[in-house]
Every structure is written in C-alpha cells, then in structure tokens.
C-alpha cells in the first residue's frame, strides 16, 4: 500500500465512523475497503490511533475498539469541559415536546396535565414544568374533578413572544386545515 493509498483508507474509515451512529464491525469496513488481509487493516487502524493520540494533541477525537466494533468518540480528558458545554441552560430554546405542550395549552386552555398527556400520548410533566419556568404558562385554577388538578393557561409573556395582541389572533384550525388538506386544483395541462 502506498502512503497515498494508506491516507485515503484512513480518511474513509474516519468518515464512515463519523457518519455511523453505532459502532461498526471491522469486517464490514474491510469488505468496504476491499482488504482481505487483517494485518493490512490493522495498519490502517494503527495509523489512525497514532495520529489521534500521540501525534495530534489538537484532535478532539479518538478511535475506540469495543466488543461491538469500531467507533469514534471524544478524548476522555475533554469530558469535563464537554459536560459544561452541553448542560448550558439555553433559556430561549424550547424542545419539540415543550412546543407540543404549549400548543395544546394555547388551543385548549385551561387544560390539566392529564388532558395534555392524553393528547400527546406521553406523560408531559417535564415540558409543563419547563414552560412554567419560562413563564410561558401559568396555573389559573383547579378543575372541579377528583384530585382537583391544576389548570394551565398561557401568559402575557406567551402573547409577547408570539407577537399576538390576544389569543383570538392565533391562527384558526380551519385555516390550517384548508392549507394542509386542500385538494389541488385541476392543473392547466389535463
């Protein structure tokens, strides 16, 4: 194998492992690279490992060989800092779960946690707490049913965030139905 070939093989292995979401069996990669000789494959992996670990302190990644196969992972000495980055509170961001919950409260208010969880098909305690913290919803009272569950409604902040003067300005479901379910008009060319 020429040095150029070896470089190309290393690049391919790195790209494959990068894209894959799970560890990849060495056999699959050997087949992909059309390598029969395991020693030859080992040379590629060693070139990668040497590069990641010894020669390039500026690399944040390394090759991991585990039972399941080969995988790219971050270097262990970066873990503390990475944890700091990925737990940073992103106050202005909402997950899809929170947005779903918010949309149900906006259209069905006042609504109980049970009603919200039922519509979404999953327990929605987390998103409701999150929205309360962000002051996008509030508790307006208690429903007169056994257990007296809290009733949630949207807040003034909610209106401000979405640029609405009042709740009647929320797009109606009829409008959306029209938009998404409207039959296509007959085209010119039929």
């Amino acid at each position: 194998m020429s040095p150029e070939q070896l470089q190309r093989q290393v690049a391919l292995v790195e790209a494959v492992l990068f894209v894959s979401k799970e560890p990849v069996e060495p056999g699959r990669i050997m087949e992909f690279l059309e390598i029969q000789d395991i020693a030859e494959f080992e040379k590629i992996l060693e070139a990668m490992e040497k590069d990641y670990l010894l020669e390039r302190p500026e690399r944040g990644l390394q090759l991991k060989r585990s039972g399941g196969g080969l995988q790219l992972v971050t270097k262990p000495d970066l873990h503390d800092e990475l944890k700091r980055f990925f737990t940073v509170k992103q106050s202005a961001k909402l997950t899809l779960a929170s947005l779903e919950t918010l949309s149900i409260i906006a259209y069905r208010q006042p609504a109980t946690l049970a009603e919200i969880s039922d519509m979404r098909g999953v327990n929605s305690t987390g998103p409701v707490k999150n929205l309360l913290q962000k002051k996008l919803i509030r508790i307006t009272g208690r429903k007169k049913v056994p257990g007296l569950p809290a009733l949630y409604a949207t807040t003034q902040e909610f209106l401000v965030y979405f640029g609405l003067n009042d709740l009647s300005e929320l797009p109606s479901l009829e409008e959306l139905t029209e938009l998404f379910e409207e039959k296509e008009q007959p085209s010119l060319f039929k």
Partner: protein
Amino acid sequence: MQTEFDGYQVQTEFFAGPLDLLLHLIRKNKLKIMEVRLSQITAEYLAYLENRRGINPSRESEFLMTAATLIYIKSRSLLPKPEIPSEESEEKQLMHTLIEYEKIQKISRMLQEMEYTELLLWRRLEMNENFSNREYALKEVSAFQLAEIFFDIIKKKESEQFLTISSKNYSIAEKKEEILSLLAGRGFIDFSEYLSRLDSIEEILVSFFTLLEMIKCHLLIAVQEQLFGTISLYPNQAGQLDN
C-alpha cells in the same frame, strides 16, 4: 428516424427550427406570441413522440416546460387581466413575465447546484433521526408553527381511530396486471388522475402500493412533470411494453 440526440424541430408556416430557439425569439421580441400556433406545435410534437420508440424523460419534460411557458404566455395574452396597470402594454407585460420566469429558472438552477454540493457532505446519522430532540430558538417559532404543531397532534389522534384497513377485494397481483395493460394501451399513466378515478379508499391504497412496488422493481419510472407537480409513470424500458 432521428438519432437519440436530435432535438425536436418545430415546423410551422412562419417558423422552422428547434423549440428553444422559438422561445428565444419570442423572448427577444422578434416573434409575436399571438402568431404562434401552440395547438399545432403541441399536436405535432405529440405525433412525433408517438413515432418514437421509448421515452426520454428529461427531454420530454424539457419540452413540457417550454410548451407550458408558451401556453402560459399565450393564455395571458388572450385572457383579459383585471389588475394590469394601464400604462403597461400587453406585450411589455408578457415580456416582463417571461423575464421574471427566466430569473426563477436561473435561481432554481443555482439552488440545485448548491443542493448538489451540499449533498456531497455527510452529516452524522443521528442528526436526521433524533430530529425531535432539536431545540427551537423561541424567536424562530411563529404562532403559525405553534398552530401547525397542534394541528399535527389532532390529526395523529384522529388517525388512530382509522388504522384498520382490510383489503380483501383487491390484490396487488391483479392490480399489477391492470396497470400493465393500461400502460400498454396509453404509454403512460398520470398518477393523480389514475388514483382519483378509483372507487374506494381501499382500492386506492392497494393501487398505490402496487405502483410503489412496480417502481421499486424498476418496472416503472415516475417522472414529475415539473411545472404541474403531477407525476407520470412510464414503462422503464423502451419497447418492453410495446403494443
């Protein structure tokens, strides 16, 4: 018989040459759109297609694009248009439309090239699959998106009640035979027209899956005729399903 690479030639009493030259001349104001007999050009082109063995989807869709542009321009020149500013002449308006349309074409081409370049770059697979984990900056979310999310929840809820569909009256094998004979007769099938003529949801579903299956097995090619957004299905190999 012309070779595969010959462009289609328009033949009328006042113009002879390739179709895109015709369009070019109209655009350059050298030829009046009113003088172009679109029905004649179209009829001749269809006759030309009938005499050819097999179909080249990219060439044919190009013709359709060009023809559609001509038809559009001409229809605008024939129909009264209420909101045209009065000082602008009909002809200027047409030229404007054509130039605007050309711009859209150019932008589309540019976007297509950008898309191509981007598709060469692979992201990590998690990205597409864990889509529901992404976080939305609140300022990106409009009231309409919120409404759309609610709408999706309701639709999902409703669809849960309609999940059981039995298909005892139609089989994929029978549908396949029917589609093959339709293709043999007509040469192609207009996807939405074909589905809309069927009787029941059940039959539509079976037909739809049959078509998908046939496309997957390379028996059919699906071509989206760009301007109209409808899909046509052609037999995959020229001559394979000839009468």
